[in-house]
């Protein structure tokens, strides 16, 4: 199954939940925020949120800025 992850095509070979994706990316426990098809998915719902073909996922974090 393929999704758009941070603007790039991304192949999912695992159980397609957001929590599993975050783990697979090595971002478990990191301070990130996630948007699925332009809607925020709260951290508490990552485990229950299933991904579907073509979903657009954005994962963001804090960087230096003014």
């Amino acid at each position, binding site marked *: 199954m393929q999704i758009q992850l941070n603007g790039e095509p991304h192949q999912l070979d695992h159980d397609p939940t957001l929590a599993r994706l975050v783990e697979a*990316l*090595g971002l478990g426990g990191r301070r990130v*925020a996630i948007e699925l098809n*332009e809607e925020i998915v709260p951290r508490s719902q990552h485990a229950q949120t299933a991904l579907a073909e073509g979903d657009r996922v954005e*994962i963001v*974090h*804090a960087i*230096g*800025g*003014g």
Partner: protein
Amino acid sequence: MSQLIEDTPLTVAGRRFHSRLLVGTGKYRDFDETAAAVAASGADVVTFAVRRTNLGQDAAAPNLLDVISPERYTLLPNTAGCYTAKDAVRTCRLARELLDGHNLVKLEVLGDEHTLYPNVVETLAAAETLVNDGFDVMVYTSDDPIVAKELERRGCCAVMPLGSLIGSGNGLLNPATLRLILEQAEVPVLVDAGIGTASDAALAMEMGCAGVLMNSAIAHARQPVMMAGAMRKAIEAGREAFLAERMPRRDSASPSSPFAGRINP
């Protein structure tokens, strides 16, 4: 001797801050320098940006929020790099999720890459949406007093006109319009953008600004940590000078030493 005036803390959307200097975290060499400069500035409010996470990056790499901790500082996520109201609103919602519900944001919607001048049409639209969605919006805007008032009417908790272009270090290019904004504002007015050196910050405070937000003036100084300390003092000096109320300007001289009693009258 007349009584010393007790200053009140900077209050934005019910939050009270000890320091009237707000600082950004961009353009530093590394996180160590960021942390040292922010600490030396004495700032309580620290700005940062929200960006896509680099995937495949070492997951153990340090994160800005490990260095600038939400426990120690009031974090102010910005919408820098957004050119539409829609993108700015999305970015604020991501930031609120990132910070576990913290709803104070710095809204900036830019017009073009060359000037980074605010697009006030998009800024007004984004402000309205964000306020209705429960955000406390500190808004970067042009130094147009009518726009500043419109942003205040839409519920922004602080209005932050530019002194000059972002990152230019040109100081306060139009003090007259800034004064017009200050005269009519009922929310705190902070200068955001354009500060180049300590005297620029002091001037903004002497004019009655509630605070100043800066990034490049500190980060791009040859010695950022030393400049951060200079800015802290400039903000305090400018604030005290504002409260003390400066002497009137006059065109003629007025001797400070008495004429009476001179040895050769």
